[in-house]
């Protein structure tokens, strides 16, 4: 069995359902008695919208779901300004100065002139949550799931070393970047890439995988989202796609049967294309997970159904 992962980083191209998958993964990990933290870093209220709860404000880590299995998921929306003030407090005991700095616009200034600093602050907060200890327990959370920036930015976001390369060579920020990088590179951290079986998302997934590799951060799985499973084989799909089948459904008119056949032809062609893209992804040599397309939209039931599919296909090292 693979080592238990305590930090799951979920990325994917815009529109691939990255936030939904991150939420479902958190639920899947929240088996009996376990506490999971789901974090977002882009301030879009994605988590609260997904779980249909009021927006997560400031540093609160509110419980957003109790899973049928008996675990709990907490949500946190990480904000760079809050993280910087917390950082100043921890390392310099400067919480008041931090607030004054904020008034000056200094926080915005600092994160603007040193864009990498923002990412270090965000990942730094994740680091803190992963390592946080509470009484009688080895860790405050059994696992942390991060709804990370999209694939186009992910390698950059995670490469906190490069981000601070131009900054201080010594001192706390450097040390913190080193600690964050050690955690990210450890065997307990994995990155999951969410994709659709469409050309652009697959291309971006390939590019993201290539970009993450040099950072020495492990890629766990590629999650193929919104896939349409089919019991038919290639030959049957080919025939349908090329329009060389005729359908005879009793109770439908000839016209309706023709309309059904031509609609099915388009569906079959799409499925063949999806399979072709799935084949492309297998060349990455990473475990592939498939999540079925939910035609009814995303609600609580859909999240739990995705969570179940994740549990079935990933070795989710639950306690």
């Amino acid at each position, binding site marked *: 069995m693979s080592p238990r992962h305590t930090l799951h980083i979920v990325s994917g*191209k*815009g*529109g691939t359902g990255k*936030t939904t998958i991150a939420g479902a993964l958190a639920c899947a990990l929240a088996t009996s008695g376990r506490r999971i933290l789901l974090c977002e870093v*882009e*301030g*879009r209220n994605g988590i609260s*919208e997904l779980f249909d709860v009021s927006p997560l404000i400031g540093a609160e880590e509110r419980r957003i779901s109790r899973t049928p299995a008996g675990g709990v998921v907490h949500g946190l929306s990480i904000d760079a300004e809050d993280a910087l003030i917390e950082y*100043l407090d921890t390392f310099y005991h400067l919480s008041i*100065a931090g607030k*004054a*700095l904020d008034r*000056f*616009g*200094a926080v*915005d*200034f*600092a994160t*603007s*002139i*040193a864009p*990498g600093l*923002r990412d270090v602050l965000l990942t730094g907060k994740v680091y803190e949550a992963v390592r946080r200890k509470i009484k009688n327990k080895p860790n405050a959370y059994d696992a942390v799931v991060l709804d990370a920036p999209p694939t*186009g930015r992910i390698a950059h976001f995670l490469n906190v070393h490069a981000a601070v390369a*131009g*900054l*201080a*060579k010594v*001192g*706390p*920020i450097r040390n913190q970047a080193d600690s964050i990088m050690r955690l990210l590179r450890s065997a307990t951290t994995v990155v999951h890439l969410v994709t659709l079986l*469409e*050309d*652009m*998302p697959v291309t971006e997934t390939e590019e993201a995988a290539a970009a993450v590799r040099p950072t020495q951060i492990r890629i766990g799985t590629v999650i193929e989202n919104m896939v349409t499973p*089919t*019991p*038919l084989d290639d030959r*049957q799909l080919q025939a*349908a796609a090329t329009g060389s*089948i005729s*359908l005879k*459904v*009793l*109770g*439908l008119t000839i016209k*309706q049967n023709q*309309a*059904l*056949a*031509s*609609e*099915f032809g*388009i*569906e079959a*062609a799409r499925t063949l294309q999806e399979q072709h893209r799935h084949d492309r992804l297998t060349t990455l040599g990473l475990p592939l997970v498939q999540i079925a*397309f939910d*035609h*009814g*939209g995303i609600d609580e039931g859909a999240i739990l159904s995705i969570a179940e599919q994740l549990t079935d296909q990933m070795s989710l090292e639950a306690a």
Partner: protein
Amino acid sequence: MTSGYSSKAFQPPTHAGVAVPFLDIDKIIGDREIKIIICCGSGGVGKTTTSAAIALRAAEAGRKVVVLTIDPARRLAQSLGVGELDNTPRPVPMIDTAAGGSLDAMMLDMKNTFDDVVIAHSTPEKAEAILQNQFYVALSSEFSGTQEYMAMEKLGQLHSEAEANGTWDLIVVDTPPARSALDFLDAPEHLSSLLDGRFLRLLLPPARGPLRLMSAGFSMMSAVITRILGSQIINDVKTFVRAFEALFGGFRQRATATFQLLSSRHSTFLVVATPQHDALREAAYFVDRLSEEDMPISGMVINRVHTSALAISPERALSLAEDLAGASTPLEVEALRRHANLMRLIATESHQMERFASARPGIAQTRVQSLPTDVTDLVTLRRVGALLADKD
């Protein structure tokens, strides 16, 4: 403020109750007073495809068009003839020029655009000093607002060029996949306030005017910042600010001019979305924000809307499939099952679109059906244009 491109109620009355005004793309294209069309929306909704399709349709209707794309899919870029990122508009081959139009396409190179601005507005020595500066390098390639800002800068440049020599009479802009819906509108203000903000001024001794009174408090702040970021970057910033000082005014002035151009009746915004909850939620932010800023919105383009020519309910399809289950007709069963899924998806999508329309009733829509293939060539792009205009 919404402009007058919505006419009759939305074309196929797909749902009872909510009459959605139809967004008439051909009317926008045909209005010679419209010189800029901006497509905005969240990532992955087909913004680039929509921009390219509108540009192509306008060109073939006789407009002289340039389309500014930010981050196109490789194959779409190739079909437009902008395979490389070189910041220069190039003619798109193989388009129909019978109506007297033309189409150029270009892909934004953020860093080069910034470099060009520096070179164009300072002496060679100063430009050299700025381009070498470490802080400038970080700012021009990484600062989160730079891409949005440079898209606006480039738009301003293309517009002046179009006005000066009549190369183009319509600019179609594909906006960057803004992380937050607000970045795109805030970028000029954000960057120019960073560049001439009081914080940067405070770094430059001696502080002038009333700000001098703040310098005691500031030196403490400065010390903290230095401890966090290191002294090197502070020095880089100081050097940069000194060299860049002369450019500040120009930056702000151009940002303001572009902002005014976008608010004028020569511009119009299209908000692009797909019929999913989160994409529509992002679209709602855009619509509200644009309205707040009094920007001219024409309406919404909803891409990848599923349709079916077979009016058989999912329940009926599934029951037919059940009847067939024993027989050796796997194709029929699968076709019916797929049809049932499609009908459920169509119902979910129209529910989402209806909710959006009832929350924002004045916003015109045009819907583009989901296509079986990726849009990677001119033929398909032309078809998307026809679908946008409801002339397919």
